[in-house]
């Protein structure tokens, strides 16, 4: 039986555009009702962000380059977290999303231990907010309680909202065109000041991210393009493509001669 998949959501992160500003981190925190990471939480190593900017230094002192890598849930095609859940709280849905069902989760943390990218987080404490921030909680996202696992959802609440809005206003199914016209995207993508993050449908031929995935799948391992996926050699088949940073020193050099 051929299962028709309408959407397969994916993301492309252009590391050449990423400035490491942490805008996506803050946007995600606000959109998804993440608790405030206080100093206490950091000291306990219990602070978490659904999308984090990993920072690497390259080179020796005067010639140091900072490299940034925004890491969110990779929504793997072969997700290591899924088969280990004893209560089926995490599963792969038909739109290529790795879903965490909060009210099913019993907090075994098997998935966290099995996640290759360390993007699943456990609520060790009841999340709290300062009183003045309680009215900014997003009503479209559950406020998770203590004792359950949570992770990036590709802002599934925004995708659902987009589907309903498009069906109501235009009587069509959600596609790339209507999605772009109505400006629907995950919070991190919306917040990115340099448009380093791109979100779209891998299955849609006309989607702006489709080409990157096409290229990656066609020339696996021998691609000339900048696209790669982190830790793809272990076979997790992630839905997030990173575009290599173009070395600026070389660029300037060649430009001055050209």
């Amino acid at each position, binding site marked *: 039986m051929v299962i028709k998949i309408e959407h397969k959501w994916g993301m492309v992160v252009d590391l050449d555009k990423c400035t490491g500003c942490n805008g996506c981190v803050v946007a995600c925190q606000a959109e998804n009702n993440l608790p405030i990471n206080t100093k206490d939480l950091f000291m306990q190593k219990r602070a978490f962000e659904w999308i984090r900017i990993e920072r690497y230094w390259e080179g020796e002192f005067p010639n140091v380059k900072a490299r940034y890598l925004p890491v969110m849930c990779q929504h793997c095609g072969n997700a290591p977290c899924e088969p280990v859940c004893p209560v089926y709280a995490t*599963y792969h*849905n*038909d*739109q290529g*999303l790795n*879903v965490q*069902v*909060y*009210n099913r989760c019993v907090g075994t943390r098997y998935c966290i231990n099995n996640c290759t990218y360390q993007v699943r987080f456990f609520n060790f404490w009841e999340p709290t907010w300062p009183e003045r921030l309680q009215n900014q909680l997003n009503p*479209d*996202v*559950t*406020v998770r309680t203590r004792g359950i696992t949570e992770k990036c*959802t590709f802002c*599934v*609440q925004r995708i*659902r909202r987009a589907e*309903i809005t498009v*069906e*109501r206003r235009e009587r069509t199914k959600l596609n790339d065109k209507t999605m772009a016209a109505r400006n629907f995207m995950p919070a991190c993508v919306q917040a990115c000041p340099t448009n380093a993050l791109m979100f779209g449908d891998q299955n849609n031929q006309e989607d702006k991210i489709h080409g990157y995935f096409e290229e990656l799948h066609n020339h696996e391992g021998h691609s000339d393009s900048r696209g790669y996926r982190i830790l793809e050699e272990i076979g997790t088949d992630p839905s997030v493509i990173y575009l290599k940073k173009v070395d600026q020193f070389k660029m300037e050099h060649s430009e001055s001669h050209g």
Partner: protein
Amino acid sequence: MIPKGNIVAATLVGLIMAGITGFILLVIAISWFSNAPFGLANAPAQPIAFPHTAHAGSVDDGGLGMECEFCHRNVTKGDSATVPALQQCWYCHQKVSGGDEEAQAEIDKLVTAYSDGVPVNWERVHRLPDHVRFVHEAHIRHFTMGDTPETQLEVKEVCTVCHGEVAKMEEVQPKQFQSLKMGTCLDCHRKYDVPTDCTICHK
């Protein structure tokens, strides 16, 4: 003559039985006086007795036959059906008076609240858990714009699918037509071949 040991044992058993009975009675008492969905008590008393029968009830039954969405205006536009603003009640009731003194007293409460600018704290009757997303508009769209006669209903007929005949209820009861538990949702989603992916409803 009963041996001493048996008396001690019998006393212990008696105490335990009494304890269990007391606990069961306590649970029943708590649930009797607490509100829905867990309790057995009636709907919470509203600050103003609003009879759905008089407004939405059919003309033959002495009602006005108003459409549900005349007051619950957001029901065809957005997620929640919404309770109307006080101004909307007042707009009619500045002219329309109650049939008898009792009804007039309730309308007076409303007019006073409006002229004083004090919001009425309506008690919420139907409440879904925090982790559920329910969009009224999408469901009304499905039942009014479908292909089969079953899905080409009037808006007020759609409301009765889940809420029952509210037009015939003096006050809306928390134990209603449908339990509004996950099984209710899933039965219907399966019946109409609508996606049952977790993220459709759970957020």
